[in-house]
């Protein structure tokens, strides 16, 4: 399956892009996507081990199972207002 990964603010600066399509094995969870992005040599290797993540517009725990086409946004610490 393929999930859309979105990066904002400082995470986008690291990634060098706002969006990546990532292929993952069936049954993968958010934690697997995080591990994939943090692999040694990845531009996102330095993101937190447990980043805040939203799946399809809602904050979601790292154990959340992913499905093909899901949109997974990586949310650095927020600073609105």
């Amino acid at each position: 399956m393929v999930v859309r990964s979105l990066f904002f603010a400082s995470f986008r600066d690291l990634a060098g892009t706002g969006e990546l399509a990532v292929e993952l094995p069936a049954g993968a969870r958010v934690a697997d996507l995080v591990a994939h992005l943090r692999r040694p040599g990845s531009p996102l290797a330095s993101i937190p081990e447990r980043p805040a993540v939203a799946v399809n517009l809602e904050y979601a725990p790292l154990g959340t199972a992913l499905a093909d086409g899901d949109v997974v946004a990586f949310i650095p610490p927020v600073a609105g207002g």
Partner: protein
Amino acid sequence: MSPPARACRVTPDAIDPRELLESSVTPSDGAALLFWGVVRNEHGGRAVQSLEYEAYAEMAERKMQQIADEARERFGTGAIRIVHRVGLLAVGEASVGIAVAAPHRGEAYEASRYVIEELKRRVPVWKREGYVDGERHWVPGYTPTVEKGD
């Protein structure tokens, strides 16, 4: 009463305080409170020249609407509207406007405070400060907590 359509918005345009107030107040309201967040000229002792706001707009509007709905239910107010601006803002410009209408003023104060505090904790918006020397950096913020255990 349900809030007006698109009560909560992310926009690159300047925020209009009159529009925010007038679209929130109904004939049964006796007060409205408008929170107006503006760009300051300094942060942590450093002179700020501009602030650039970025949002995950679709999710930010959804979160702002959730916060508005929570506040309406919790404090029994009338309509609540939240508009957050994105893009490059100068010192003195408004980054966020929150209008809370209510039959009586006590609820409006409580709900307004709730909305701005929750907005800062949960709404996916970021800001990058630009200093007079040309340097820029992302302002450290709150890490949103995920409610369900992971």
